[in-house]
């Protein structure tokens, strides 16, 4: 054992099968890879830069004196390091990624090609607007598609991700209430909501009031009505909801919310189920963020970047934050300061971010939309729903459906009832899937269901892919039924790592590499 530093420790011989044991710790194509800081050098570099011209420095007294302790690698070493790391990751391109509520669909490479065109990649956000007419036109065009698809009046483009969009939507509501001379105190949030919803409501100072779920997982309009009063600012509702069902009473709920003078915020995380089938605007929604990285397939990139434009109803549109595009006779005009709104009906509540939002994601999303068109996006929603129901049909006799065996939308929710008394938990089941070469579904969410397993296959999966997935899960369930549970509780055994000790990580956080001894001084 070499301990904490140097190459990761090999598996101890005792308890490990001899077949697993190698000199390097590698197993076939699974290569162990040390940290950059263990293999790099302070004078290592993979770039050749010219010697700077001689000048008199203008750094005042601020010139750096200490070393930076950075590690550098040559180009081939860099490539090998990161390629080896990449090989420890599961990805959509290598298999079904059935994370419920996350929408891991295919990321078309055309969109990557287009976003790298110099006309998009190599333009500065503060160039004179006369030199970025194409960029403004693109944002305006994407906004038009988003408002058409959602049946809404306007869209705030700048939020950088879903949660940022939620914050934007709620701030728009705060501002709209203020313009009416009101400041309300409460926001209604169903128990099944994404955790970001109550976090966002609390961030802007609202008291969060829970709405319990009905027996079928949906929101009961009577439970909403009981909690509605003159101090409720908004309801935050996800539709389709996090259990994978369409909220069938959504119009009744929206009407009650509006009658109370409150606004209807919709979490658009699941919009991908209904594009071309129903429009949030027709359901009474006032504000909804759209995760471009879910519904419109901009890459998740291992956790970002995302993009979360917020579509707004007529009532909320004037309060959208800076910047936005105003159309003058069809010509896009960038509005980025309060001064530009004087003499108009625009009342922006402020600014969510520097510059104009996630332009790189806008380019990819519009490219995705143009490729699909109205017919393709509707077909994508239908196929997403078809695929989720096909999985439900394939597993409903073996796994437990907390809200009954009835059609779901784009994702299907199971609970851990079928694991009861087996000694296998939802977590164990998920880890066994890893050994079968699958990324697990979303676990333990939504919280309203015990041991939740939320499966979202997306429209990108072929029938053959779904058949094998279903067959694999059936086999796993039958293993549990036969009490062959060893592979579950000790899984994953075949992944690059076994289960990791999260308690140790949290008790004594080690959040950066620490040198055994300091690096020597910088080379220059």
């Amino acid at each position, binding site marked *: 054992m070499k301990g904490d530093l140097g190459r990761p420790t090999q598996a101890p011989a005792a308890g490990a099968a001899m077949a697993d044991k190698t000199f390097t710790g590698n197993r076939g194509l699974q290569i162990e890879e040390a940290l950059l800081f263990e293999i790099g050098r302070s004078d290592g570099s993979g770039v050749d830069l010219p010697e700077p011209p001689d000048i008199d420095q203008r750094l005042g007294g601020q010139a750096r004196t200490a070393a930076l302790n950075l590690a550098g690698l040559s180009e081939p070493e860099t490539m090998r390091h990161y390629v080896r790391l990449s090989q420890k990751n599961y990805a959509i391109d290598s298999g079904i990624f059935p994370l419920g509520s996350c929408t891991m669909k295919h990321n078309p490479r055309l969109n990557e090609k287009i976003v790298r065109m110099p006309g998009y990649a190599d333009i500065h956000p503060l160039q004179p607007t006369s030199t970025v007419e194409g960029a403004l036109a693109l944002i305006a065009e994407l906004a038009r598609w988003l408002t058409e698809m959602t049946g809404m009046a306007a869209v705030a483009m700048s939020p950088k991700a879903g949660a940022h969009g939620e914050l934007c939507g709620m701030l728009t509501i705060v501002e709209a209430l203020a313009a009416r001379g009101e400041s309300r105190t409460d926001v209604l949030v169903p128990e099944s909501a994404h955790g970001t919803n109550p976090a966002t409501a609390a961030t802007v100072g609202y008291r969060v009031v829970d709405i319990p779920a009905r027996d079928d997982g949906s929101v009961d309009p009577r439970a909403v009505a009981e909690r509605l009063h003159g101090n409720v600012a908004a309801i935050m509702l996800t539709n389709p909801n996090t259990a994978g069902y369409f909220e069938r009473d959504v119009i009744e709920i929206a009407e009650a919310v509006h009658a109370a003078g409150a606004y209807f915020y919709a979490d658009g995380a699941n919009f991908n189920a209904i594009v071309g089938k129903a429009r949030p605007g027709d359901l009474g929604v006032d504000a909804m963020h759209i995760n471009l990285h879910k519904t419109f397939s901009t890459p998740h990139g291992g956790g970002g970047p995302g993009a979360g434009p917020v579509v707004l109803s007529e009532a909320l549109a004037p309060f959208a934050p800076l910047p936005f595009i105003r159309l003058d006779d069809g010509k896009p005009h960038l509005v980025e300061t309060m001064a530009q709104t004087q003499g108009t009906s625009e009342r922006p509540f402020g600014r969510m971010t520097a510059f104009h939002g996630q332009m790189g994601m806008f380019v990819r999303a519009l490219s995705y939309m143009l490729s699909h068109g109205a017919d393709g996006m509707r077909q994508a929603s239908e196929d997403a729903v078809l695929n989720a129901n096909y999985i439900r049909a394939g597993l409903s006799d073996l796994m437990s459906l907390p809200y009954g065996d009835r059609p779901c939308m784009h994702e299907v929710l199971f609970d851990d009832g079928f694991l009861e008394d087996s000694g296998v938990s939802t977590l164990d089941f998920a880890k066994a899937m890893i050994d079968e070469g699958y990324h697990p579904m979303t676990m333990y969410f939504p919280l309203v269901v015990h041991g939740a397993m939320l499966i979202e296959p997306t429209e990108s999966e072929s029938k053959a892919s779904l058949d094998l997935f279903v067959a694999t899960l059936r086999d796993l369930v039958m293993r549990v039924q036969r009490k062959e549970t060893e592979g579950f509780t000790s899984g994953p055994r075949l992944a690059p790592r076994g289960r990791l000790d*999260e*308690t140790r990580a*949290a*008790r004594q956080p080690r959040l950066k590499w620490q040198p055994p001894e300091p690096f020597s001084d910088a080379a220059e």
Partner: protein
Amino acid sequence: MSTRYTPDHEWVRLDGDTALIGISNYAQEQLGDIVFIELPETGKMLKKGDEFAVVESVKAASEVFAPIAGEVVETNDALTSDPEKVNASAEGDGWFLKLKLSDPGEFESLMDQEAYLAFLETI
């Protein structure tokens, strides 16, 4: 010295006009591996029901509410570096803080061990 309990799974051990306070063994079992505990500053006045600490496990964070009113006179700083003491000895070394009680009479209103054990049976 006798120990009393609350329905929120805290324990209170009276010693004169001060009391030692922590979370019950049942509570630590429910939380699982505890990774961090945030304690109040000494000198802080707590009303009954005030939030005074946050207990974090890997997957959850829970607030702890004052079972009884008083002034914080000492906190168990060992928990900052060794939060696992609470898992090992919730009702001993894993105490949270010492309060100088505002109204020692409040103590009598809490459950004794027998009542608490009976209460746990109902959960």
